[in-house]
C-alpha cells in the first residue's frame, strides 16, 4: 500500500497516544473474571460458585477467562490483551472508598491523581487532553493541566459557538501574539467537533457496540466507550480518558451481580478494539479495580472483600498474555482472612503501560515515594 505523503505526515503529527482508564468500582472478583481453573485450591474454596475447568475459556494450562467474556478470547490469542493477576495495592483496610482513593491517587499521601501527575509531567496539553466520561472528575485526573468531565459529547458540540461567532473570534484573535496560536487550536478543535456533531456515530471495521438487547448495563457502558473511540478517532487531542463501571460488590449471589457486567466489559472492549482498527496500536486501555475478593465463597453464594485482583491491558502495543507469579491459594499462601496475595503492585502494572505513553523517565514524578519496577505488560 502506498501512503500519500500528507497522510503519513498527519498520522505522525497526531501520534500522541491515548490512555483509557476503566475503573471497575466495587471490587471486581478477579477469581471470577480470570479463574485459575488449574488450581485445586480454587475449586475447594468455591465449591458452589467456581468457574469449572470445563466451562472456562482456556488462556493457558492454568488460567481461563469467564465464559461470559468470550469476546475477549480472540484478543488474548492475538496478543492484544494482557492480564495481570494477583494485582492490587498495599491498602489492607478492604474499604472500597479507601482503596479506590489510594489507587486513583497512586500512593498514600501524594497530591493529585496518577493520570493528572503523568499528564503534568509529560508536558503539553490541549483543552481535551483529559476527559472523564461521567458526571464528575475521578481522583485519578486530579492535578491534570486541564480536565473535563462530560456526560455527553453534546457538551463539546458547538451550541452557542455558532459559525458567525467563530468567524468573528478568529478575526479578533488574529495577530494576537500571546493568544493567537491558542485561538487557532481552539477553532480547529471546535471545527473537528462540529464535524462529529453533524452525523450520528458510525463505528468502523464492522464493530458493534452493545444494544438494548444486551441489557442496560452493557448498553450504557458500550455507549461510553464508543464516545471515547469517537473522540480518539477524531484526533481532537485526547491523551487520557476515564470511564467507570460500577456495581461489582458481589456479596450476595455473585453470579447475578457480575454476569451483566462481565458481558458489558467483554462486549465493549471487543467492539472498541475492532472499532479503533490501526489506532489500537497507539491507544491503551487499562481495566482496574480497587481490590479482589475473598478466595472462599460465603454462605450466600457471594464473596467478600479481598486483596489481589485482576487487571486487563488492551492495545497500545501491549505484549499480550498472562502476567503473574501465581502465589497459590493454599492455606499458607493466603493473606488476612483468606485473600489472594498482592504479588504485583498496581503501580508497576500501570507504569508498564505509561512507559509506552512517554512517562519512561518521569516515573518518579508519577508515582512519588516508590521505586517503580514497570511490568512488561
Amino acid at each position, binding site marked *: 500500500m502506498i501512503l500519500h505523503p500528507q497522510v503519513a505526515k498527519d498520522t505522525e503529527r497526531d501520534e500522541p497516544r491515548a490512555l483509557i482508564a476503566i475503573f471497575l468500582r466495587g471490587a471486581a472478583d478477579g477469581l471470577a473474571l480470570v479463574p485459575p481453573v488449574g488450581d485445586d485450591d480454587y475449586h475447594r474454596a468455591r465449591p458452589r460458585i467456581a468457574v469449572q475447568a470445563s466451562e472456562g475459556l482456556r488462556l493457558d494450562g492454568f488460567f481461563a477467562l469467564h465464559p461470559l467474556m468470550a469476546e475477549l478470547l480472540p484478543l488474548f490469542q492475538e496478543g492484544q490483551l494482557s492480564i495481570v493477576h494477583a494485582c492490587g495495592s498495599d491498602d489492607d483496610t478492604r474499604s472500597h472508598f479507601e482503596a479506590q482513593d489510594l489507587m486513583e491517587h497512586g500512593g498514600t499521601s501524594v497530591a493529585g491523581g496518577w493520570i*493528572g501527575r503523568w499528564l503534568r509531567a509529560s508536558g503539553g496539553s*490541549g483543552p481535551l487532553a483529559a476527559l472523564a466520561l461521567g458526571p464528575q472528575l475521578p481522583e485519578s485526573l486530579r*492535578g491534570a493541566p486541564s480536565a473535563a468531565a462530560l456526560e455527553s459529547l453534546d457538551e463539546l458540540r458547538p451550541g*452557542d*459557538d455558532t459559525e*458567525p461567532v467563530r468567524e468573528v473570534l478568529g*478575526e479578533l484573535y488574529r495577530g494576537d501574539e500571546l493568544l493567537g496560536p491558542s485561538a487557532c487550536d481552539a477553532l480547529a478543535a471546535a471545527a473537528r467537533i462540529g464535524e462529529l456533531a453533524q452525523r450520528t456515530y458510525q463505528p468502523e471495521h464492522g464493530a458493534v457496540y452493545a444494544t438494548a438487547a444486551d441489557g442496560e448495563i452493557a448498553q450504557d457502558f458500550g455507549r461510553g466507550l464508543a464516545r471515547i473511540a469517537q473522540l480518539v478517532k477524531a484526533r481532537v487531542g485526547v491523551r487520557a480518558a476515564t470511564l467507570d463501571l460500577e456495581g461489582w460488590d458481589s456479596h450476595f449471589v455473585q453470579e447475578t451481580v457480575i454476569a451483566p457486567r462481565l458481558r458489558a466489559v467483554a462486549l465493549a472492549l471487543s467492539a472498541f478494539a475492532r472499532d479503533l482498527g490501526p489506532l489500537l496500536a497507539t491507544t491503551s486501555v487499562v481495566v482496574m479495580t480497587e481490590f479482589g475478593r475473598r478466595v472462599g465463597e460465603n454462605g450466600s453464594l457471594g464473596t467478600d472483600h479481598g486483596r489481589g485482583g485482576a487487571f486487563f491491558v488492551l492495545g497500545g502495543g501491549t505484549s499480550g498474555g498472562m502476567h503473574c507469579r501465581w502465589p497459590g491459594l493454599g492455606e499458607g499462601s493466603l493473606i488476612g482472612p483468606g485473600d489472594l496475595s498482592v504479588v504485583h503492585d498496581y503501580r508497576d502494572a500501570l507504569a508498564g503501560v505509561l512507559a509506552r505513553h512517554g512517562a519512561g523517565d518521569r516515573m518518579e514524578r508519577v508515582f512519588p515515594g516508590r521505586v517503580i519496577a514497570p511490568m512488561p505488560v
Partner: protein
Amino acid sequence: MSLTRRTFLLATSGACVSLGGCDPLEVLRAPAQESGTFVASTSPGIDLAQHVLGRCTFGLRPGDRSAFLALAPQPRAATAAWIEEQLAPQKIDDERAERAVRRCDSLDAPIGELYEYKPQVLLRELTAAALLRATFSKRQLYEVLVEFWTDHFNIDCSKGECAWLKAGDDREVIRKHAFGRFPELLRASAFSPAMLWYLDGRANVKRTAIERPNENYARELLELHTLGVHGGYTQQDVMEAARCLTGWTVRDKNGFRKASVEFHADEHDDGRKSVLGVEIPAGGRERDAEILLETVAKHPSTAAHVSTKLCQRFLSDDPPRAAVEAVAAAFRTSGGEIVATLRALLVRPEFLAEEPEFAALRGAKLKRPFHYTVSILRATEAATDAGPALTSYLARMGHAPFQFPTPDGYPEEAAAWQGALFWRWKLALALAGGHVEGTRIDAPRLLERVGGHDGLVAHLLGRQPSARERELFLGRGAPILGLLLASPIFQRC
C-alpha cells in the same frame, strides 16, 4: 445541638434548591443588583480608573467606575482615595458577600469538627465560597491578596487529611493574615494542620541517631515561601532547617484531639544548629522553630522574593526592577507589613502606567481562569450559586481552586494559561446563552442600564471600541454578549 443542626443542614442542603421559595439564586440576586443606569468608559484607551480597578479587583461591576471617580474631582486623587479605602477592608461593609456565603455551613466549623463533613462537601463549599467572595465582596483588594497567598502557601486538598484541613487553613491562615504581617502569616502557615500534612512536616522526626529528618517542608519553606530558589541558601541550610522543625506534628483523624498541633520533644533533634548564618544553641526545643521562622521571614531575599511575586500579580510577568526594589524596601522597613508593602506598590509609576513608557502595560495582563470567570459574573451582575455546573469549567480551564498538586501554586505567568481558550470561549458563550445551571445573567436588563449595545461594548472592553472592533462586535449578527466576554480584550485586565 450544633452537630444535629449541621447534620440536618447537610441532609437538606441538596433538597433546598428544588423547593419553591428557597431558590438560592433569588437569595443572591436581591442584594447583588444595583438599580439605575451606569456609565461605561468614554475613553479610546484604558483610562486610570479602568486600569486600577481592573488590576486590583476581580473585574468591574456596573457602577464601579462611577463610584471610583466620585471619590475625588481628579482621577489621580480618586485612585489614592480608592486604594486607601481598599487597604482598610475592615471599614468596608461587606454584608453582600457575607450573605452570599452564609449557606456554606462548613466555613465556620472549628478545625477539629471539619472531620464531620465529607471531603467533597468541604471542597465544594470552599470553592463556592472563594467564587462568591471574589464575586460579591466589596473588599476586592483583600480578596485578591487572599487568592495570592492561597497560591503562595499552596495546599492541595487531595493529599492526605488536607481534604478536611484546608478549610481551616483557608480561614485561620490565609484569610486571617492576608492583610497582616508576613512573619505572622508565615508562622501560622508553618503550624497549620493542613500544611503539616501537605508538606509532610508531621512526619519530620528524629528519634534515633541514624534517623534522618523529612526535608520536604524545610525545602519549600526556603525555596517557595520565603527566600526563593536563588535566595542564597544551601542544601546544608535546608537540612538544618528541617532539624529545627523535627518533632512538630499534628494528630490525625483517628483518635482524640484531632488536628491538634503538638511538639514532641522526644522526636526533636535538640543539638545545635546553624541556619543561614544564625547559630541556634543546643537544647532550644520549641524555640528552634521560632528562631528559624523569624530568621527566614526577615531575610532580605524573602522581601525580594515576595515583592517580585506581588509585582508579577499587579504589574506584569517581568516587572521593572525599580518597582520590585521599591516594594521590597517597603517590605523590609515595615517588618513585612503586607498593607504597607502593597501601598508602596500601588503608588508606583510602573503600576499606574500613566507615562508613555509604561502605557503598554495597561490592559496587557492575562486574567487567570478563576479571575476571568469571576470577572464575567461581576461585569454582568450574574446571580450564581457557584455550584458544580460553574466550577466544572474551572477544572476544564485547569484552575480548580485548592487542587493544584505541587507546592508552587498555580502559576501567575501568562504563558501557563494561554492554552485554555477553548473552554474560556465555551464558558463565555454558555453563560451568555444562559446554559450554565445555577448561574443567570439578565442580559436585557444589563443592556437597558448601560444604554444599549454601544454602552455594553464600552463596558466590557473597558474603553471605546475601534471602528474595526465595533464592526466585528455589532455588524456581523453574532450574539454580542458572548462574543464580548470571549474576546481577547476581556481575557485581559
